[in-house]
C-alpha cells in the first residue's frame, strides 16, 4: 500500500519534470521579453500592459494572423524548404473572398471554397516546382510570389467587395469570454502538433528535412511529402487571409505585404527553434515566437513608438533574433 503510493508520487514527479523539460526554451525568452516590456510600460507609459486584460487579449489576437500562417511555415521549414509566397496568398485570399461575398451571407461557402482551392493550387505549384523542376525553394516561392503579386495588382487596385456581418464572427465572435479566433489558433497549433508528432506524414517530414538522400534511400516518397507540406502551408496562409479579412471587413491587395507575413512567419519559426536547415522544430515553439512578436507589437503601441521607427526595430529584431541562432553554427551562410 505504502509502496504503491510512493511509486505514484515519484511517477507524478517524473511526469512533472518531463513536462517542464518539454517546454521549449523559447517560452522562457517570451516571459523575459514580456516582463521587460511590462516594466518599460510601467516606467514610460500608462502601465496598462499588465493591469488591463484587454491589452493582454490584444497581444494574442494580434498573434492569431501571424500564428496561423507560421504553423504552415513551420511545416515547410521542418522539411528544409521555405515559403515566401504566403504574403500574396494572404492578399489574394482577402481580396477574392470579399469580392465574391459582396456582403451576401449566402455566398460565404462559395467564397471559402474558392479561396481554399486557390491556396491548395498555389501550394501544389510551389511543391511541384521545387521537387520536380529542382528549383531551390526560396527562389521558387519568390517567383510564384511575384506572379501572384502581378496578377492581383493587375486586377485590383483598392478595397474590393465586402464581407457579410455573419462572417465577422471569425474575427470578432466569442464563445463565452474567449474569442473564437484564439480558439482557432490553439486548435490549429494542436492539430499541427498532432500531425507532426503522431502521424506517419509528420515523421516522414522530419526525415525529409533531416536528410533528403537518406529519406529517399529508405524508401520515402520525398517529393510527395514536400508537396503536401507546401499545400498545408498555403492553406494556413488562406486561413490567415480569411481571418484578416473578417477583421478589417474588406480585402485589399496590400494586406499581405503590409503584414510582412513572409519574413515574420519565417523569423517566428526560427525563433521558435525550428532549424533553418530543416529536420528539427515544432509548432509549440513557433507559437512562442509568434507571441514574442505580438508582445513587441503591443508594447511599441503602448510606448507610442513612431510607426516608421517600429518598422526599423522590426527589421533589426528579425535579423538579430535569427543571428542569435545562426552565429554558433559552424557552416557559413550564403
Amino acid at each position, binding site marked *: 500500500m505504502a509502496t504503491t503510493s510512493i511509486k505514484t508520487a515519484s511517477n507524478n514527479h517524473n511526469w512533472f519534470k518531463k513536462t517542464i523539460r518539454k517546454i521549449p526554451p523559447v517560452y522562457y525568452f517570451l516571459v523575459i521579453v514580456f516582463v521587460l516590456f511590462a516594466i518599460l510600460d510601467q516606467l514610460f507609459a500608462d502601465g496598462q500592459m499588465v493591469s488591463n486584460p484587454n491589452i493582454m487579449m490584444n497581444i494574442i489576437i494580434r498573434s492569431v494572423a501571424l500564428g496561423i500562417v507560421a504553423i504552415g511555415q513551420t511545416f515547410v521549414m521542418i522539411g528544409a524548404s521555405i515559403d515566401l509566397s504566403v504574403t500574396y496568398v494572404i492578399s489574394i485570399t482577402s481580396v477574392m473572398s470579399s469580392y465574391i461575398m459582396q456582403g451576401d451571407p449566402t455566398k460565404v461557402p462559395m467564397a471559402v471554397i474558392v479561396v481554399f482551392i486557390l491556396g491548395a493550387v498555389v501550394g501544389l505549384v510551389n511543391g511541384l*516546382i521545387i521537387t520536380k*523542376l*529542382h*528549383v*531551390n525553394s*526560396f*527562389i*521558387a516561392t*519568390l*517567383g*510564384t*510570389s*511575384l*506572379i*501572384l*503579386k*502581378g*496578377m*492581383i*495588382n*493587375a486586377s485590383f487596385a483598392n478595397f474590393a467587395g465586402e464581407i457579410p456581418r455573419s462572417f465577422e464572427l471569425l474575427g470578432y465572435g466569442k464563445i463565452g469570454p474567449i474569442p473564437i479566433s484564439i480558439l482557432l489558433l490553439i486548435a490549429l497549433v494542436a492539430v499541427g502538433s498532432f500531425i507532426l508528432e503522431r502521424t506517419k506524414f509528420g515523421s516522414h517530414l522530419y526525415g525529409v528535412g533531416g536528410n533528403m538522400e537518406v529519406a529517399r534511400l529508405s524508401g520515402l516518397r520525398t517529393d510527395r511529402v514536400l508537396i503536401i507540406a507546401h499545400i498545408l502551408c498555403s492553406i494556413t496562409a488562406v486561413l490567415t487571409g480569411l481571418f484578416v479579412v473578417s477583421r478589417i471587413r474588406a480585402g485589399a491587395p496590400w494586406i499581405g505585404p503590409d503584414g*510582412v507575413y*513572409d*519574413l515574420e512567419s*519565417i*523569423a517566428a519559426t*526560427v525563433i521558435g527553434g525550428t532549424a*533553418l536547415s530543416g529536420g528539427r522544430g515544432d509548432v509549440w515553439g513557433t507559437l512562442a515566437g509568434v507571441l514574442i512578436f505580438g508582445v513587441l507589437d503591443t508594447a511599441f503601441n503602448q510606448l507610442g513608438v*513612431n510607426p*516608421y*521607427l*517600429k*518598422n*526599423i*526595430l*522590426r*527589421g*533589426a529584431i*528579425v*535579423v538579430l533574433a*535569427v*543571428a542569435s541562432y*545562426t*552565429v554558433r*553554427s559552424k*557552416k*557559413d*551562410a*550564403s
Partner: protein
Amino acid sequence: MTKKEKNLNTNNKTFFIRVLQSLKRISPVYLIFVVIYAIVGYLNPNYRTFDGIFQFLRRSSPTVILAIGQMFVLVTGGFDLSVGSLISLVLFGSSILLGNDPANLGKTLAIIMGIGVLVGLINGSAVSYLKVPSFITTLGMLLLVKGAALYWVGGAPKGYFTENFRMFGRGYIENLPIVGRFPISLIVMLVIAIISYIIFHKTNFGKSVLAIGDNVRTSRLSGVNVRLVRLMTYVISSAFAVVSGVLIGGFGGISQTAGTGAEMQAISAAVLGGTALTGGKGSIPDTIFGALTLEAMFNLLNLLGLPKPYRDAIQGIIIVGAVAYGALSRRKDR
C-alpha cells in the same frame, strides 16, 4: 561510344562545327535581346533612331547598374533584397539633404554614398560573421531601410531635386558629331560597367567571388578570405544601388513608391544574363544585356498596352524558368 572513338570525332571536327560550338558558348541573352528589341522597333519607329536608342539606354541604365551590383552578390550564392528600399532611402534622403539648394549637391552625394556603404557593411557582416542567411538579412534590411527612409521624411517625401542633382539622370552632352547628343546617365553606366568588368573578370577579387559561389570549402582552403570577399560583394551591391538611385531621381523625380521592387528587377536581369542563383557563374557583359533585355520586355509590355503589374508576373516567370532550366540541364549533364 568508347573513348577512342570520341577522340577521333573531336579530331575530325570541321571548322564549321567548331564555329558553331563557340557560338553555342555565347549566352542566348544576346539573341533574345535582339529579337525583342526588333519587335519593339517594329511596333514603334522611335526606337529605330539614334535618339530613340539613346533614350532606351538612358532609361535602362539604373537597372543595368543595379543588376551588375546584384550579380556580384548572386555569384557568391547570396541575394541582396534590400536594394529597392535603399533606392527609396537615397531618393527621400536626397530631397531633404539638398534642401532645394544646388550648393548642397556634393555634401548630399557624399552622405548618401556613405549610407549606402554602411547598409552594405551591415548586410555583409550579418551574412559573413553572424551567418544569417542572406535572404533573411536583406529582407530584414528591406524593412529597416524602408522604415528609416519614411522616418527620415516623416511619412512622405518632401521638396524637390535641384537641377544639378537631376542632371545625372536626365542630362545630355549636346552638339556631338554624328550622334547629336549623348546622355550623361549612359556615361555613368559605361564607367560602372568597365570598372566592374575589370574587377570581376580581371582581378583576384573577382576570381575569389566566383570561387566562393562555386565551392566555399575549396576556396577557403586555397587561401581566399571568404568572409571579407562576401562582405565586399554586399558593399558593391549597395554602392551601385545608390548610384542607380541618383539616376532614377534624375528622370523620375520623387515619389512615394520610388525604388519599390527594384531588387526583383535586378535579380531577374542578372538571371536573364545567365547568372546562376546557386552561385559560381556570372558575367558582366551578359548581365548588362540581361538588364537591357528586361527593359526591352517592359517596353514591349507598354507598347502592347498591358498594365504595369504584369511586369512582376513576367519577372517571376523569368526567375523560376531560368533556374528550372539551369537545374534540369545540369541534371541531364550528369
